[in-house]
């Protein structure tokens, strides 16, 4: 008997038990759809975040105090010595080939206007801040060099802050209260959306000198450096080390954009695999469902197997008939699951802020995994069927 014939017999059997076939398939459909959707979300988020980091330019370097090894650095001891504005001035003077040296302070705060308040993240920098922060001005301007030098109380606000405090109004020229001080709004930014890379729409931008005064700090968190030429990044890195080593020894770290991306990709990749693993479990459960139904089907059709064997079916014929049934269920379920998962991912990208990206790789993996589940969980019941003694099978009531 040829393969086409096995196919025809198997699909006739599946069609004869439509409700059961569909319910069995549902397990695989849900499993595959979950894999596609969750991996799609993982990949989408990863793409967006790395895209945002890359969007800042591959010629950025981040200098942070303390020693960071290859790991994620979450459990590092607090650095013994922090950077000061002096350090950033020193780097600006002593390292050639730089577009900008930006000292950064980050802090969280509450912004008030009248009786309205909104939580915000302060991103304080110098006039080079616009070089290293993403975002497009919707109106007004950023703070100027003179305002940095004078530690003026000026602020440029993100769209969420604007929409909360100034609904439907132009905020430029108005005042807000930040840490008890009155600030003049000089500019506001367009919404960046997404919000997965830290909510940039809730940020407020003030001069770093002002931030030191308002928050009563004498240090800065990070120094962000923009090299003129991305190809010279390693040279610039060496120069930075040369300048800072006499002052800090080994107690500082220079990250290139590439390293930052590497860290992010590691983290997000792990997250994606975790999601895929969880979804994979539901696919496994779907597979067990197939095995269960196939076992029921084999015992229900014992007599049919006996008849087929009596008229000449060999072990292989019965085996392939039942394996094809199981694989048919899982492959069909896989195709429907891919459609559902893909559609769900597309809808999610369209109607929610969660970005999704369904890659051909994920689709292929889910498909072959589903087919594999069918083979794996179908072989045992099929083997059981093929080993039936025709005499016993024919006598079976």
């Amino acid at each position, binding site marked *: 008997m040829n393969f086409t014939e096995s196919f025809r017999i198997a699909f006739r059997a599946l069609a004869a038990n439509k409700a059961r076939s569909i319910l069995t398939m549902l397990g695989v459909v849900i499993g595959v759809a979950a894999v596609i959707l969750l991996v799609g979300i993982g990949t989408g988020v990863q793409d967006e975040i790395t895209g945002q980091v890359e969007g800042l330019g591959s010629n950025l370097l981040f200098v942070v105090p303390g020693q960071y090894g290859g790991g994620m650095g979450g459990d590092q001891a607090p650095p013994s010595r922090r950077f000061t504005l002096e350090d950033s001035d020193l780097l600006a003077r002593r390292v050639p080939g730089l577009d900008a040296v930006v000292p950064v302070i980050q802090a969280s705060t509450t912004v008030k206007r009248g009786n309205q308040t909104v939580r915000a993240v302060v991103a304080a920098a110098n006039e080079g801040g616009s070089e290293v922060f993403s975002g497009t001005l919707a109106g007004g301007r950023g703070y100027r060099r003179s305002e940095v030098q004078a530690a003026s109380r000026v602020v440029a606000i993100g769209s969420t802050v604007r929409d909360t405090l100034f609904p439907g109004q132009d905020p430029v020229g108005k005042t807000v209260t930040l840490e008890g001080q009155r600030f003049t709004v000089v500019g506001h930014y367009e919404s960046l959306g997404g919000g997965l890379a830290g909510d940039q729409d809730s940020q407020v931008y003030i001069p770093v000198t002002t931030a030191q005064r308002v928050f009563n700090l004498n240090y800065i968190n990070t120094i962000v450096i923009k090299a003129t030429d991305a190809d010279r990044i390693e040279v610039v890195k060496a120069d930075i080390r040369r300048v800072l080593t006499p002052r800090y020894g080994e107690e500082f770290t220079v990250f290139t954009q590439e390293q930052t991306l590497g860290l992010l990709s590691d983290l997000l990749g792990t997250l994606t695999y975790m999601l895929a693993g969880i979804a994979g479990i539901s696919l496994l459960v779907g597979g067990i469902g197939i095995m269960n139904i196939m076992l029921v089907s084999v015992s229900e059709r014992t*007599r049919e197997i006996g008849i087929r064997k009596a*008229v*000449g079916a*060999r072990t292989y*014929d019965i085996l392939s008939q039942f394996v094809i049934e199981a694989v048919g269920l899982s492959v069909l379920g896989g195709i429907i699951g891919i459609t559902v998962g893909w559609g769900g991912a597309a809808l999610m990208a369209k109607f929610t802020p969660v970005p999704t990206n369904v890659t051909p790789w994920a689709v292929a993996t889910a498909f072959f995994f589903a087919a594999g589940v069918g083979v794996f969980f179908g072989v045992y019941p099929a083997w059981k069927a093929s080993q039936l003694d025709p*005499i016993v099978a024919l006598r079976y009531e």
Partner: protein
Amino acid sequence: MPDGTRALSRVVLETRDVGKQYKLDGVEVNALRGVSIAIRAGEMVTIMGPSGSGKSTLMHIVGLLDQPTTGEVILEGDDVSGLSPNQLSELRNKHIGFVFQSFNLLARTTAQVNVELPLVYAGISGSERSRRAKEALERVALGDRLSHFSSQLSGGQQQRVAIARALVNNPSIVLADEPTGNLDSRSGIEVMAILQELNDQGITVILVTHDDRVARHAQRIIHVFDGHVQSEEIVLNRILAGTALATLPAEEVAG
């Protein structure tokens, strides 16, 4: 067919000193002990015996569904004892056509597809299968029931589909196990008439029954008792189902 020619025709299937032991619930059962029978081409033979006589075991061995523990089974001159289950499947497909008491048709399947089943496993192409299945169904007067499902047919019709299935691959032997056991008397007579008609056309038929009346449709009866052949009997007053059918009043309900 006169007795003289029958004696000269070749032996299709022969058992030589066949014994069969098996364990049933841990108890050793001697189902057959030294059975030697020979079936000649074109014969109609009954294997007869009460239940527990070993008749069914003998039928399974003759039908190549089972292997003897001792002795030999010779099919068309070849020793087939000791073959693998798959080899037996192929031999059954080619040489044996089964007719069972409970019809054993596939449910939710048309008459045509049921009859095609042995041809599927013989690896015969779709169009050839379809042609031969139609032909076989016409031989049992069911040419107008090709696409009826088994469940839409009467018992007699189902048994005729089973006979068509048994015939379709031109087997050496049609093996009918209590073919009338589940039928009303009229359908039973019809089925026996078809089997006799096929035998007249040269097909070798083995009947297996405990019923003396059914047995006497054959030319020869092999009496099996306690696992061995008790006696062989040439049927003198053979019942001819075709004649019996002609004397019955015409069927009231068609189909």
